[in-house]
């Protein structure tokens, strides 16, 4: 018996080796010199976050069209190479390796999931390739002192703290509860908001967590209903947030929900309908109410390219991200030296970024984090036809609407 086995072994080993060598040789072809300017974009383009990543992609393609319509950079066409992270750290690492070492992109941009981007940015740091993160929010990404790592959007404390002042000045809750997704975002949020609650003298009555992917939240909502908090902090992504709103209604529970801006996507509103009324969060969504001309120009350009759709927060973050990258590539000068030198020049150019874009002014701090983009406090309000939309309610100078106190379900007109 072993001798038979051995025969297959031999054959398979030879076969495998041949296969391996063949594939190895096939992929090892040299890159040609006339390549376009290549930017790598990382994101979960398949899997359950594909929709949100697709929004980011739409924003990026708009920025790409804009630059290529003007003849590209230095007369060369700009090209995006997408890397699919599937929101899994191991897959994300493989994808970023491919972008950096095989596709030889000048810069890595995009980036959605924090766990993926912590690993990816570490790799880019070792490989001295600029990594400009677009959406991932964990503070860890930029707080490790990595020279080549940047982020064009607020990190989680910035998102979360945006609402603290409103809580202290306007809402002044007495009893609060936490109902968070079991992720770094949820846990960071819990810490930051617990401190904020202590400062304004609010009592924390519950600290609940749920797993990402859960669908039945009636257990938690029933518990919350019993505790009657004025405010429930609820970090959840689109699907879970929508389900929580729906089930809160089914269990006749009313509170002021405070979440994060990322949940208020078009997909979310489509799922919840008027149920999401009164929910709040801090957001960067380029709503129509924004008076800013740059944001308005972005919104118009987006709607011209994608008729019938409206840019959400991820589209705007993606657009700004690629804009910043392209701007730095342009200022760094025509690439042509060694890849390492081009990348170093782009990194230096990134440091002196100063642009006014759809989310606001983008300037990097010493750590590569943007501190000049400030989220506003938004609330979901209904129009005459019961259609939900976010409105900026705080800070006052940017506000387009007034805060509305949640009313009992039975008194709401829109069903």
């Amino acid at each position, binding site marked *: 018996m072993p001798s038979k086995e051995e025969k297959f072994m031999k054959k398979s*080993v030879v076969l495998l080796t041949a*296969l391996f060598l063949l594939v190895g040789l096939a992929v090892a072809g040299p890159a040609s010199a006339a390549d376009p300017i290549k930017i790598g974009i990382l994101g979960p383009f398949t899997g359950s976050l594909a929709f949100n990543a697709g929004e980011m992609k739409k924003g990026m393609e708009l920025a790409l069209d804009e630059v290529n319509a003007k003849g590209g950079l230095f007369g060369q066409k700009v090209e995006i190479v997408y890397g699919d992270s599937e929101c899994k750290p191991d897959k994300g690492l493989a994808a970023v390796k491919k972008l950096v070492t095989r596709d030889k992109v000048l810069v890595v941009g995009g980036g959605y999931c924090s766990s993926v981007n912590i690993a990816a940015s570490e790799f880019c740091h070792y490989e001295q390739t600029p990594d400009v993160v677009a959406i991932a929010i964990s503070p860890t990404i930029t707080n490790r002192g990595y020279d080549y790592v940047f982020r064009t959007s607020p990190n989680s404390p910035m998102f979360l703290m945006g609402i603290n002042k409103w809580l202290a000045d306007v809402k002044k809750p007495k009893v609060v509860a936490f109902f968070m997704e079991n992720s770094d975002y949820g846990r960071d949020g819990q810490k930051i908001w617990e401190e904020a609650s202590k400062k304004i003298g609010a009592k924390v009555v519950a600290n609940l967590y749920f797993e990402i992917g859960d669908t039945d939240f009636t257990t938690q909502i029933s518990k919350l209903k019993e505790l009657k908090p004025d405010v429930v902090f609820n970090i959840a992504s689109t699907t879970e947030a929508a389900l929580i709103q729906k089930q809160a209604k089914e269990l006749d529970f009313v509170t002021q929900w405070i979440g994060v801006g990322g949940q208020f996507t078009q997909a979310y509103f489509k799922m919840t309908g008027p149920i999401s009324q009164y929910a709040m969060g801090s957001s960067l969504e380029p709503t129509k109410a924004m008076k800013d001309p740059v944001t308005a120009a972005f919104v118009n350009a987006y709607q011209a390219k994608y008729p019938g759709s409206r840019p959400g927060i991820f589209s705007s973050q993606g657009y700004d991200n690629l804009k910043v990258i392209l701007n730095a590539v342009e200022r760094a000068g025509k690439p042509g030296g060694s890849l390492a030198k081009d990348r170093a020049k782009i990194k230096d150019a990134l440091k002196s970024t100063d642009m006014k874009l759809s989310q606001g002014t983008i300037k990097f701090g010493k750590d590569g984090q943007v501190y000049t983009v400030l989220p506003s406090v938004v609330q979901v309000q209904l129009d005459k036809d019961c259609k939900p939309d976010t409105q900026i309610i705080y800070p006052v100078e940017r506000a387009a609407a007034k805060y509305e106190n949640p009313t009992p379900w039975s008194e709401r007109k829109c069903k």
Partner: protein
Amino acid sequence: MSARLRNILLWVVALAALILLPQVVEDRYFMHIAVMAGIFTILTLSWNLLAGYTGQLNLGHAAFYGIGAYTSAILAMQTGLSPWLGLFAGGLVAALFGLMLGFPALRLSGPYLAITTIGFAEILRLVAMNWVDLTRGSLGLSGVPLLTPIQIGDFRMQFYFERDYYYVVLAAVLFTLFCIRRLIGSEFGVTLQAMRDDEAGAQSIGINPSSYKLAVFTISAFFAGFAGGLFAHFARLVSPELLALHNTFDVLTMAMIGGLGTIAGPILGAVSLTILSEALRSMEEVLKIDIRLIVYGLLLILTILFMREGLVGVIKNVWARVKGDS
């Protein structure tokens, strides 16, 4: 030339080709894929040891992979233990869990065992998500130390590039292969196969199936943990994702497509699926649709329906026909 000599020669040529490969291929991404293929080869070999040779279907194999990765990473990061020792420590801790799971598994078979092992992995994944102080929860551990350099006289080998890890993983695959082959070829292995084919018969000649099954469970878990440690120091990251069910599904697909209950099967399956996966990935870029997992699912079904012995069976048939013709 005697058969034995030819055999040795074949091994030497194959090994030389595998050793020289990184000198020919400079593409680092290719080397990354090769390393991952090696890690999955170890996982598949170890899973197959249990499923293929004892008939026990473990759907929680990814848990052992994750335990090994976390153990090795945490030991290196918090106690400064050499990652080289960590690899084995990871294997040992995984083996301990394997033993723990092996006891209840003795009384279970088929769907009962399948769901219990899934449950085991899911519970541990939740522990990895929730024990934030130790594991940093869903973010996982990043910045896991690299394998420490080896210095022998003037020769110094660093471990940073994919190529360096390729050699480590190649050695690890050979080590695993050696151990498993010895095990299967020994009296122990013969007994296992006798048990798989006729448990009552084996019992009647005085074999105690429980201790055999337990031993295999433990050994299988050891190698999975070992593979986990390799991953941790190679990728420099560990996350609860490692314990997820889809990793086990990848492993069992590889084993089935290669050929269950053989030694060459898992190797063939792991390598060919990795290559296929990359080929499909580049096809996806052209087609703009996700077909990779659809192909995986389809292949798994078709393999079970039409080529139960997997690629090994196909090669066997082709070879027999070639020989018959000549």
